[in-house]
């Protein structure tokens, strides 16, 4: 009996040990990049790691979307079963860091010079308490216009430089019988557009005060009221069926020429590429009028968990590969975003990507790189969602005037803080 038990234990230990040895050479990754282009982009990273002898293991997530992944992550962390890394957004990284479950990559960061190459605004989310806890993968920017060139030529429009130009352009499209503005009436899309409207109406200083610092005076100011009025003006140019539409369907309207323009982050470019459209000849990318020189960003990050020491080598390899110039370039060319470090050559990028890289660098140097409130980079999720509620209720008419909208915004943000 005792012998059997001993043998059993020995066997179990051996199995456990051998399983462990495999773990050490394995990168366990939780992410929701499963669609064609994104998965292809991630394969580059898998290849890079395989060259160094690390196997890639996806942590399965039922449901696909980011919300499901975050729920799964919460459960894994609560059970003490950390993945090597997880795709994460903004304040989530800081929440987990505050809970003390994130690893420390400061040594690697120093060696690789991340402090200098990663924009300071991003480091707010990837560095916690002086320690590097996440590796940013990309920088998306939100204040873009995506325009169908054929429609633009037909109506004889030119690049709008101010908000009034933009309204005039939309009027032209309306007169020509095209849907002027393609919008998906879901709260995050409306709020994403409103981010740009506020930056355009109030300027960079105002955007930062209101949507990054949550300054009360700015939130209730007349400028904010004016921003809501401008949003209301834009909403008059959408088609009656906009409510509830997915963002990629709105992009498809522009691609097909049913609509002139969409205000959306640069992930929309992926849809244009998938439809074999080239920037400059088929579609145009301009900064949202009146926001040239500033960038409202959000960023995907790989949060690095506090894994046992024997798994740390794999984690360091992952982080190093993620922020390597070659991967940053290869991945972001496909994803539509721009590299998360400012020293990556832009040779492989298309015209829009080149502009994005130049804009990011200029905004980083000039201090006009701001987190998007709608995308959860301006304030914690409770506040960001309260903001989306107000914007969406204003767009759909539950909140009727811009006066009321401003009052509600201040109230909702105070309540959520």
């Amino acid at each position, binding site marked *: 009996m005792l012998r059997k038990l001993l043998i059993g234990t020995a066997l179990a230990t051996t199995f456990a040990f051998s399983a462990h040895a495999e773990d050490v050479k394995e990168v366990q990754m939780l992410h929701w990049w499963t669609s064609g282009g994104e998965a292809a982009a991630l394969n580059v990273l898998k290849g890079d790691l395989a060259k160094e002898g690390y196997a890639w293991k996806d942590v399965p997530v039922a449901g696909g979307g980011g*919300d499901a992944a*975050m*729920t799964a992550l*919460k459960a894994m962390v*609560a059970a003490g079963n950390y993945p090597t890394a997880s795709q994460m957004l903004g304040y*989530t990284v800081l*929440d*987990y860091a505050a*809970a003390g479950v994130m690893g420390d990559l400061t040594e690697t960061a120093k060696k690789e010079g991340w402090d200098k190459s990663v924009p300071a605004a991003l480091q707010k989310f990837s560095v916690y308490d002086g320690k590097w806890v996440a590796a940013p993968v990309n920088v998306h920017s939100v204040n873009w216009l995506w325009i169908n060139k054929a429609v633009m030529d037909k109506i004889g429009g030119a690049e709008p430089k101010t908000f009034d130009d933009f309204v005039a352009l939309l009027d032209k499209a309306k007169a020509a019988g095209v849907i002027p503005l393609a919008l998906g*009436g*879901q*709260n995050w899309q409306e709020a994403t557009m409103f981010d740009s409207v506020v930056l355009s109406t109030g300027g960079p200083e105002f955007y930062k005060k209101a949507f990054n610092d949550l300054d009360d005076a700015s939130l209730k100011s007349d400028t904010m009221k004016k921003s809501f009025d401008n949003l209301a003006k834009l909403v008059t140019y959408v*088609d*009656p*069926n*906009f*409510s*509830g539409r997915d963002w990629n369907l709105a992009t498809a309207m522009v691609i097909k020429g049913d609509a002139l323009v969409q205000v959306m982050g640069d992930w929309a470019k992926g849809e244009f590429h998938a439809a074999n459209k080239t920037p400059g000849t088929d579609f145009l990318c301009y900064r949202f009028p009146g926001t040239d020189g500033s960038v409202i960003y959000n960023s995907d990050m790989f949060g690095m968990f506090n894994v046992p020491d024997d798994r740390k080598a794999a984690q360091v390899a992952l982080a190093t590969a993620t922020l390597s110039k070659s991967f940053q370039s290869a991945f972001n060319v496909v994803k539509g975003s721009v590299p998360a470090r400012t020293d990556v050559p832009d040779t492989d990028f298309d015209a829009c990507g080149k502009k994005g890289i130049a804009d990011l660098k200029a905004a980083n140097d000039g201090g006009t790189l701001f987190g998007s409130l709608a995308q959860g980079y301006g304030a*914690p*999720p*409770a506040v960001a*969602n*309260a903001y989306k*509620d107000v914007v*969406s*209720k*204003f*767009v*759909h*008419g*539950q*909140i*009727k005037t811009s006066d*009321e909208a401003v009052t*509600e915004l201040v109230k909702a943000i105070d*309540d*959520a803080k």
Partner: protein
Amino acid sequence: MSVATSQIKLTPERSRPSVRSRLQDALPKIVLAPSFAITIVFVYGFILWTIYLSFTNSKTFPSYVITGPRAYQRLWGWTFDSDPPSSWYTSIVNMGIFGFLYIAICLALGLFLAILLDQKIRGEGVLRPIYLYPMALSFIVTGVAWKWFLDPGLGLEQTLHQWGWTSFHFDWIKNKDFVIYTVVIAGVWQASGFIMAMFLAGLRGIDGEIMKAAQIDGATTFQLYRRIVIPLLRPIFLSAFIVLAHLAIKSYDLVVALTSGGPGGSAWLPSNFMYEYTFKRNEMAVGSASAVIMLMTIVAIIVPYLYSELREKPR
């Protein structure tokens, strides 16, 4: 146990039946024990845990520091925020509209269809599964199918416009005041066939002699159903009500798939509110408090009803 075995050996003919009968007595308890324990922990244990969390300051992660009923105070404040409607106000008003219409229409339609199918018609074997089939679909599939059908740019309205009826207008799914009724439509479509099957089973169980007796006494068909059949179906009403009530309160996926929350969040139900606040807004205390309020509401409705229905059982 070893003592018991030795006793068996000593006096086999007397104690064997006693052990056997003791085992027989205990067997149901032994078999039920694991599921009982699992239910205690994973249902009632977590109910208590949720109640506990609702009194803490839990945000992203559960926190165990009791900080008082602040979450309830916030919900209470939102309950009266009707202009502009707070998300919580919208959720509970929608629950009222959806719950009432969904249960009432499903019961009425299910009963009506069952009575029609019970008229010894030809092809019942084909018709019954047709009505029953929607129940086999998940809420997600139902939601997406109805989303396309009701979308004015894709479905019904567009089709009728192409056929020439250009004045037809049906945009409830895009309208903040009517979107909740589209959830009712999709929900009723899915569940009424199942309720029909329940009523049909009940109708088949009614003794034909009673019907014949009533007909001999000169009851009209209407009277027959009104006075005899429907009262006899009372236990089916109870089962159907409970099935529908819990489906109504659980409805989360239907709202998400059909409306993605509706224009400006106007299609939210309390379950959407709970999920949003707990998992997306990192306000776990508020989410827990809303879950507790949902539970209390169900208890307040179901318990008196169960009590009044089951009280007369020992007849």
